[in-house]
Each structure stands twice: as structure tokens, then as C-alpha cells.
């Protein structure tokens, strides 16, 4: 009972901060083109960073509470999709935080890196919206995705064999290790 209540509460925080991260990152990136937004770029940057950190903390809690709130969390295609999409959202959010921490607040001054940041934040926001919409469909039968002219078929999914997931896991860890330890040193961007 409490798992469901906690899940609803934590999902609200995770999705809210995730959307805030996406919007602020998008506006910070647009500051490179729109002069009026340029003055607020620092504020957008800080807001997106803080909201992304809170979102990154809340998403695993939302996944765990959601697991306990349902009877068969991995045995139904639509709930299986929620797991996979949550993983994608966490991946994009973590990447956004990593970029911001590694390159500093001046990252928005570099067009290529700021574009990558914007893509990460938008990706996280997109998958959070999709995951939240599936939850809304399950619990109350409607969601924000209803305004779209089509609704993707989330009642079916692609179940990867466990060994492919393991290969992806090892490849992911290896690429992170190579990028952080064996690659060239990445410095914060200065003026």
C-alpha cells in the first residue's frame, strides 16, 4: 500500500525535475542563438544541473517503489518497457551531469558540447515523459501522450536475451573506463 503511495510521490518529483532539466538545458543551449536568453544562461545552467541531480536520485527510487507496487513487474510487456525506458532516462541524465561536471559551467559556450548536453537533457526528458505516460495509462487510463495523433504500441516489447544484455553491460563499463582513465585529460572550459 505504502509502496504505491511512495511510488506516486517519487514519480512526481522525478518527472517534474526531469522536465525542468530538459527545458532549462534547451533554453541554455538556445542562449547561444537568442541574445535575450544569453543573460539567463547561467541561471538555466544552474537550474538544469540541480534538477538533473535530484532527478538522478529520484529515478532509482521510483523504479524500486514501482517494482514493489506491482505484482509482476517484469512479467508484463508494458511494465518491462517501463524498466527499459527508465534505464534510458537514467543514462541520459547521468551523461548530462557528467558533461556539466567535467567541463564546468562554461560548457554552454562551446557549441558542440552544449549541443551534446542539450541532446542528453532532451533524451532524458523524452524517456521520462514516455515512462510517465505509460504509468498514467496503466493507473488512470489516460496520459499526456493522448494528445498525440498516434500512440505507440507499448503492450509489446523487445526482450533481449540475457547474454546480449550482459555484453552490452560489459561494453558500457569498458567504454566508460576507457573514456575516463585511458583517454586524454578533459579540462574545464574557461573564458
Amino acid at each position, binding site marked *: 500500500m505504502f509502496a504505491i503511495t511512495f511510488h506516486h510521490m517519487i514519480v512526481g518529483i522525478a518527472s517534474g525535475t526531469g522536465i525542468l532539466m530538459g527545458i532549462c538545458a534547451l533554453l541554455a543551449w538556445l542562449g547561444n542563438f537568442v541574445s535575450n536568453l544569453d543573460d539567463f544562461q547561467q541561471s538555466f545552467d544552474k537550474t538544469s544541473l540541480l534538477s538533473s541531480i535530484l532527478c538522478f536520485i529520484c529515478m532509482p527510487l521510483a523504479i524500486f517503489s514501482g517494482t514493489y507496487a506491482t505484482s509482476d513487474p517484469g512479467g508484463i510487456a508494458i511494465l518491462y518497457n517501463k524498466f527499459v525506458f527508465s534505464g534510458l532516462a537514467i543514462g541520459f541524465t547521468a551523461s548530462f551531469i557528467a558533461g556539466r561536471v567535467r*567541463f564546468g559551467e562554461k560548457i554552454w559556450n*562551446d557549441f558542440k558540447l552544449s549541443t551534446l548536453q542539450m541532446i542528453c537533457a532532451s533524451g532524458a526528458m523524452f524517456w521520462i515523459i514516455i515512462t510517465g505516460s505509460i504509468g498514467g495509462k496503466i493507473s488512470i487510463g489516460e496520459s499526456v501522450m493522448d494528445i498525440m495523433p498516434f500512440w505507440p504500441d507499448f503492450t509489446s516489447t523487445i526482450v533481449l536475451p540475457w547474454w546480449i544484455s550482459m555484453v552490452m553491460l560489459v561494453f558500457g*563499463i569498458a567504454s566508460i573506463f576507457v573514456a*575516463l582513465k585511458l583517454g586524454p585529460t578533459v579540462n574545464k572550459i574557461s573564458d
Partner: protein
Amino acid sequence: MMKSRILVLTIIIGFLLTSTSSMANPGGEVDSNRDFTCGGSCHGDPSLSAPSDAVIEIRTVNTTYAGTMTEVEVSISGMDLSKNRLLGVFLLGSINGNSDTPSDYDWSIIQDPNGGSSNYVLIFVPESGEITINWVLLAPSEVGPQSIYVSIHHGSDSNPDNRAFIGTTEGYSIQIDSIPDDYPTIADNWVALEERVAGDDSPLQFSTVNTDVLSVEWRLAGEIESHTAEVVGADNEWQAQIPASLGDTRIEYRITASQGEYNNQMPWLSMDTVPPYFDGNLFGARLQSISSALIIIGFVLTMHMILAPRQKKDELDQTLEVETSEEVSEPIPIEEIPDIEPEVENDDTEEYNSRLIHSEDNPGWLWDPVESEWVADPNNPPGGDS
């Protein structure tokens, strides 16, 4: 003291107001075997219920043989429903209030209107406000008169007193006659298939008694014309080949068992098409989720390496120094030479060195034709003794 009394009184009043505005099960109950009073629900409580204005009509045979299939058709219309348009329908053996399901009177439910085998079904009523539903029963084995009742439960859109509406028919009498010797029919242990996986074309199994020949017709729900299925088997065990169905389709089929002069055509049965069973599990979902996240993080960190601003080339570029030295025409003291050796070593490949060109006009400097810049000659630094 006075404040605490007011607080307690407020809480009690709050509870009372909440209880009067609540409703029992406005979303209906799922299909199941239920007694008339539905476990003492509001619909069965005279103080909370009201009679339904629905017209309920039962159509079935007046006589049937013991242990044979019998179809009961029920038409319901004219009721005022709540916004969700849900209607609960009971098929009963009596209206005693308990132990009154058909199975309590030795009837067996082969199929209910939703494809299952329950005496209570939850039905969504279309805007027309009229429904016709069917139960297929196996008649009791004992000879004698039997009665069938139908009861309905529903809410109402205009319902200021939050009444639970109930409607019940009079008993419909059916005479159960003894079955003739050698009368062909379905075996009483046979269970109708409720659903079939999409794409599954495995044959349907039938168990019969006293049957020499079995024929099976099938059709898609809504079709009028039926098709004959290929049937193989003997000794009252049969297999009928009905084509695989796909998507949201429902297949209806009818069995006819024959022996000698008897020809027993049974009611239409139906089965749903369901999607293939999902073979995912929690471990797989977690693993796939984590691996997807790590792949994205790894990819983005790699992109950071590629897109990070490169300061090394700027530090290598000594063109300004060469030009300055040309203008001043003064040798640069060796102490002031920028310490560039460590950076050069990073790119100190043979390919890089081979492309550097010596210049007689600028001793101590090498020309990089690719980057179009002067770099210090590590073997002969500018301003050196050589």
C-alpha cells in the same frame, strides 16, 4: 477542554459526511461465481438498494436431456446506467441469497458471455442500452423440473441518494428429461477452450460419449456463413482443425455429435485470440535497463573525448615567436625558450617528424606544412649554440 471536544465532534462529523458520499463498488466486480446477494453488497441491502427499471428476458428450451448442452439467452434493456455503463449480470439456480448459483443445482457452465465459466459477468452496455448475452450450460444429470433466474446489478447516472439498483426475473422453468440410451453428447468432463494464442493452429480437442461421428463448424464472430473443420479421431476422442487466428478476433464453433438416428447439434461456443505469452522477467528487465543506461553513458563520455576543445595545438604553434624573432633578428636566449618538449613528445611520431622541414633562413625552427606553422627544432633550439 472545549477545544478538544469541538475537534472530536468535527472529526466524527467528517467521518459521517465521508461515509454518506462514498459508493461501494462503482467500478463493478470482476467475473466470478457469485451468489444472488453478491456477498452482502449494497445491491442486496434493502436500505441501500432500489429496484431496477430494466426489462430482462430469458430465452431457452423448455425441456432438455440430462447432461446435454443447453443455451440460455438473456436480453436486457431499458435501464438507466451510470456513466461507466457497467452492468453486472447473474445467472442463478434460485434466489435464496446463498448457495444459489447454477452449479449448486447441478448445472455446469460450459461458457459464459465473456468466454469464461462464471455465473456472474460484468458487461459494458453500448449506448443503445440493450444487450443480448448467452450462457452455455450442461444440464443436470438428475431428471425433474429446474428453474433459471437472472439478476442484474447496476448504478445510475441520476442517482442523488446513491442507490444500488437490482433487478431479478421470475424463475424460468426447464424440464430435465432422462437422456435416451446411446444419445451422443459432449463428455461432462470436457472443458471449452476459453482462448487461443495468436497464430496457434494446433487442433481443438473434444471428448464425447456415444458418438460415432463428430462434425465441427466454425466462423469468425459476426459472420453468418460457417465453415466445416477437418475432424479426425475415434473412440469419443476427437481433434478438429480450426485455422489460426490473429489480432483481436474471436472464433465461434459448433459441435454436432451423431450416432445412428441421433444427431445432437450443440450451441455455438467461442474462444478469444490472445497475444503470445510474454517471456520477460524482472531480472532480464533490470539487466536490460542497466546495460542500456551504461551504453548511453559510455557513448556520451566518448563523445566528450572527441568534442573536447584541444589546447595542445595552440601550445605547439610557435609561428608568432618565429615571426617576432625574424623582426627583432635577435637570438632568443635559450632560457626563454618555451618548454614545449613534453607536449611535442605526445605527438612525437615518425610521421610527424618526417613532415617537418628545415629552413636555412630560420635556424632552430622547423616548418610544419600541414598545420602551416613554425615549431621549435628540439635538436637545435632557436638561439642555441649550434
